[in-house]
């Protein structure tokens, strides 16, 4: 297929662009296969380059022969294009619609994008499972790296290499896989160096209504327990939901078959409810009516903050079991690809200082989201403005980022990265020139040959100039466990994402600059003081006169 077929009118002059809190721009609108471009053709004015894949939905309006297209983006921005000429406007609108809803992955922009920067480190090789395992090996010898899934046949959503207890062989794993949802047998998610406790994740056990059991499954997870110790199973669903799952062949671990485990149910909502919540929240944020009551009631009705609180609470629980109770933990929901990952990844942010560094966080996203088989392509196909009925879309990853932001707000000096990295990940998960978030699993990514055909987001991020932009100037390494407050008064609306386009951030940005300035000035001073001290010390040792006196 040629993109040209979809572009009915490639160019229109005299188009006016309206963006909130920015001056209007008049210029020429161009459509290419992947971008919507507006250029005023003046030197120092900003141009608009918008990826078609970033467009969530469009609306058309006509006043006489002047048409307007309101473009609503997946990053929640809303812009308006005034296009002279009815026909041009209709053509542009239908082209955008067609180009922004291409079904075939291989037509996506990452396959066409050629980097304009020098790739210093290929991000596709930055976070390999075997490297992560080397770190693990340096701490413990109780785990091994299994190749049982090397052709993705045992579990299609798992990576080729997974860490499992040393004493459990591949045959056992194959058997356990048949007992767990989508073949997601329990694997290692996190090893807590401080006390040797572990966090595992899996899909729900397929006990069904008649209480099927699987000895191998029991053996596998029991292998992670210390003698005489009990572990915790955190089921992210309520007991009712888990009960109902039995009718569809799913279920949960019964006390009788798993006597060494205590099961705790939490209430993290399922994908479709989260999507609805996002739509309501964004609608509330875009409501420009000035009534306080209306805003608060809409915010409440969206339930978004409730989800944030619930997810954080569950993550704290998992972290508490490991760090405080000194117990191992197994986390699962239904599939083990959504709420499970929110919990396991956030628990690691709380427990592991390494995850709070820029590189460590990338590694966490790679391990606990990309390789863990979170179906990014399905979940991020549409965002809050979508008109179509949601299929698999859900802001699961966005909620995770929101929770990280909440912890970051409460521990502003304990993270090496700033809010910018979180916003960047949100944007790229929904629309990107990089291949990182394409596909739904490691298997799909291999099949699409993404590492060969596209550029990794990490290649872009891990360059000095980008890293500088994403670094938190307040960072001071903090090796402790950080317990966030989950009181409703402590959790805030993530303005950097949800109000980003609805407020002028000029004053806040300037204050931030000032902060950076203060910090840098201080560093500079300390350096000067230190170097002078050294000089002085040297002078004195060189000077015999001073030494004797």
């Amino acid at each position: 297929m040629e993109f040209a077929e979809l572009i009915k009118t490639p160019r229109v002059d005299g188009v006016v662009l309206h963006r909130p809190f920015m001056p209007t721009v008049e210029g020429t609108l161009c459509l290419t296969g992947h971008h919507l471009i507006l250029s005023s053709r003046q030197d120092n004015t900003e141009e608009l380059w918008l990826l078609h894949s970033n467009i969530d939905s469009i609306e058309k309006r006509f006043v006489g022969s002047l048409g307007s297209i309101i473009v609503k983006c997946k990053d929640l921005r809303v812009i308006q294009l005034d296009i002279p000429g009815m026909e041009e406007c209709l053509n542009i609108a239908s082209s955008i619609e067609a180009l922004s809803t291409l079904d075939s992955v291989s037509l996506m922009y990452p396959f066409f994008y050629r980097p304009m920067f020098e790739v210093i480190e290929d991000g596709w090789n930055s976070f390999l499972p075997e490297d992560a395992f080397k770190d693990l090996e340096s701490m413990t010898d109780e785990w091994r790296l299994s190749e049982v899934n090397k052709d993705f046949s045992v579990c299609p959503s798992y990576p080729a290499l997974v860490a499992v207890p040393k004493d459990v062989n591949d045959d056992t794993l194959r058997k356990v896989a048949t007992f767990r949802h989508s073949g997601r047998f329990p694997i290692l998610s996190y090893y807590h160096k401080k006390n040797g406790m572990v966090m595992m994740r899996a899909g729900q056990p397929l006990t069904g209504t008649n209480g099927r059991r699987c000895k191998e499954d029991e053996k596998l997870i029991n292998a992670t327990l210390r003698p005489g110790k009990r572990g915790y199973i955190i089921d992210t669903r309520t007991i009712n939901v888990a009960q109902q799952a039995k009718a569809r062949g799913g279920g949960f671990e019964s006390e009788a078959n798993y006597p060494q485990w205590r099961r705790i149910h939490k209430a993290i909502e399922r994908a479709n409810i989260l999507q609805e919540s996002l739509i309501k929240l964004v609608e509330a944020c875009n409501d420009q009516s000035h009534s306080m009551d209306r805003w608060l009631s809409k915010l409440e009705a969206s339930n978004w903050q409730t989800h944030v609180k619930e997810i954080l609470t569950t993550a704290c629980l998992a972290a508490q079991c490991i760090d405080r109770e000194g117990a191992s933990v197994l986390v699962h929901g239904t599939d083990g690809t959504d709420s499970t990952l929110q919990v396991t990844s956030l628990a690691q942010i709380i427990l592991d200082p390494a995850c709070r560094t820029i590189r460590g966080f990338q590694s966490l996203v790679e391990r606990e989201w990309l390789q863990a088989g979170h179906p990014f392509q399905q979940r991020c196909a549409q965002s809050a403005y979508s008109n179509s009925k949601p299929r698999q879309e859900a802001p699961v990853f966005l909620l995770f980022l929101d929770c990280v932001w909440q912890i970051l707000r409460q521990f502003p000096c304990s993270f090496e990265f700033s809010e910018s990295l979180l916003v960047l990940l949100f944007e790229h998960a929904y629309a990107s020139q990089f291949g990182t978030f394409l596909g739904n699993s490691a298997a799909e990514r291999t099949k699409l040959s993404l590492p060969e055909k596209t550029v990794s987001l990490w290649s872009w991020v891990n360059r000095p100039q980008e890293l500088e932009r994403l670094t938190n100037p307040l960072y001071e390494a903090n090796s402790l466990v950080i317990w966030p407050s989950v009181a409703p008064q402590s959790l805030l609306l993530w303005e950097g994402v949800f109000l980003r386009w609805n407020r002028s951030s000029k004053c806040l940005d300037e204050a931030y600059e000032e902060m950076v300035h203060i910090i840098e000035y201080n560093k500079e001073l300390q350096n000067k003081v230190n170097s002078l001290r050294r000089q002085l010390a040297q002078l004195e040792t060189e000077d015999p006169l001073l030494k004797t006196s």
Partner: protein
Amino acid sequence: GTLYLTATHLIFVESSSNNSTSILHHHIASVEKLSLTTTGCPLVIQCRNFRVVHFVIQRERDCHDVYSSLLRLRQPVSYEELYAFSYNPKQNDQQREEGWQLIDLGAEFERMGVPCDQWQLTDVNRDYKVCETYPRDLYVPITASKPIIVGSSKFRSKGRFPVLTYFYQEKKAAVCRCSQPLSGFSARCLEDESMLQAISKANHNSRFVYVMDTRPKLNALANRAAGKGYENEDNYSNIRFQFVGIENIHVMRTSLQKLLEVTGTRSLSMSDYLVGLESSGWLRHIKAIVDAAIFLTKAVTGEGASVLVHCSDGWDRTAQVCSLGSLLMDPYYRTIKGFMVLIEKDWISFGHKFADRCDQLDGDPKEVSPIFTQFLECVWQLTEQFPQSFEFSEWFLLQIHEHVHSCQYGNFLGNNQRQREELQLRDRTHSLWAFLMSEKQNYLNPFYSPAFSELHPVLEPSTLPYHFKFWRNMYHQFDRSMHPRQSILKTILTLRENSRNGESMLQALENVSALTELQQLGVTPVATSEPPAPPPTRDQRSNDGQEEVGEEAIEGTDTERTVEGSSATESRKQRYGELEGTYNSELAKEEPAVVSLEFGVARMTC
């Protein structure tokens, strides 16, 4: 632990750690004895600074004794019992006097450019004869003669006739304040009409005066039945009348109660929190006040029109709107000193009834209302939108709030200036402003930029609902577990302090190294006559160098430098130490926004 009751404080000392918590009796808003449990008798104390403490006292009789003592102690019957009259910060009379002279309202009106060719100082209220809740010195239009003033005052509730509170020099536009007219359904007063006419004429920029009635229209209408009401546009030439709809003190009191009930709930769900926040109406009221202030500011700075603001008595909503409006218009009020002046002018001198509103003496509970707290919150909301526009940080607002209720200083005692003079507060108590000024360093906002204020003298905040947030650091100031465990403000302040130390250290080192180099060259006579023998260890040496150079610097170029220089560092350190002492023991208050890292005590609700 052990509970102690003193004449002024309630002190609790933990037996295990010797940590003590002390609460000023004046801060206690309510004491409640709950029903007996197996461990003892629970006592819940709620404070006006939003601290809530629970004690369990083993014997019920003891509990009852404590309870009844506290009931008596928390509400003195006469002013003389208030802490301010016994508080002695070890100052002599002269220092005390200087403290009271810190804020001079005459000078403030001069700063605004008043008196001028259109506005003059009137002595009509010199003896509090015309209006006993106004200050002695009042500013009125040149053309407002004494008969007009007196006539107008008779037509206004409590005699509070229109007077100047802020003068916007750039456009010669005035912000005036008064109380509601006694218009009833049809009454008129020619003097009052002339008074408004005079205000209008004093401003050549605009043909009319805005009259802002800050009440909801319904309330104003209801007042007509009582012979009060609002201005009839037909009777006053050249006025534009406008209601802005801020609710009365009773609504505000109930609103705060509801808010505190919600936020005080244990293991509160997000949904209940947001629903409660909404139904309390608190943020709606805050927004209404800011909206009114913006209306005022736009009329004055944008249209160059003068505005007359009133509500019922003109000491609650009027004070909120006038002071907040002035703060938006004039960068001076956004400095530490200026903010003190603003409070002194629009709140203290114009007779906001602090004694009644803050329940200083055992009074009518229906008179209590968090009007001033709302004003502080409005300012805080603005600091959130304009982090660089304010010289002071949140701590300053919290500290003022603390002392409005502490009755430790004389400033806020009583209901009006006349009463304060009768109480001889200037001779018998100390001024809060002097105390706050002495520790100004602690209240500075590190992000403050005077250049920003020059560029944006008039603030134009957005009042879209999502810009108004729940002020956790106020209403939960003592709930450590709820706040960020690391504070950006504190970190940056520490860095600033480090930088200052670094600067002086750098200078010291530079001087020492210059000296050393000179010695090496053997040219300096100082070295031979009095060699500054470097002490053996490195640390000591740098300290020594610092001291030496600190003294040299005084003799050196600019004196300002030395204030920030090394020699001053020590004393500031000490002051910091003292301050922490006061925070912890005397005022029973931790630095509000700052909660040190306490990983050991994680409080989790899961």
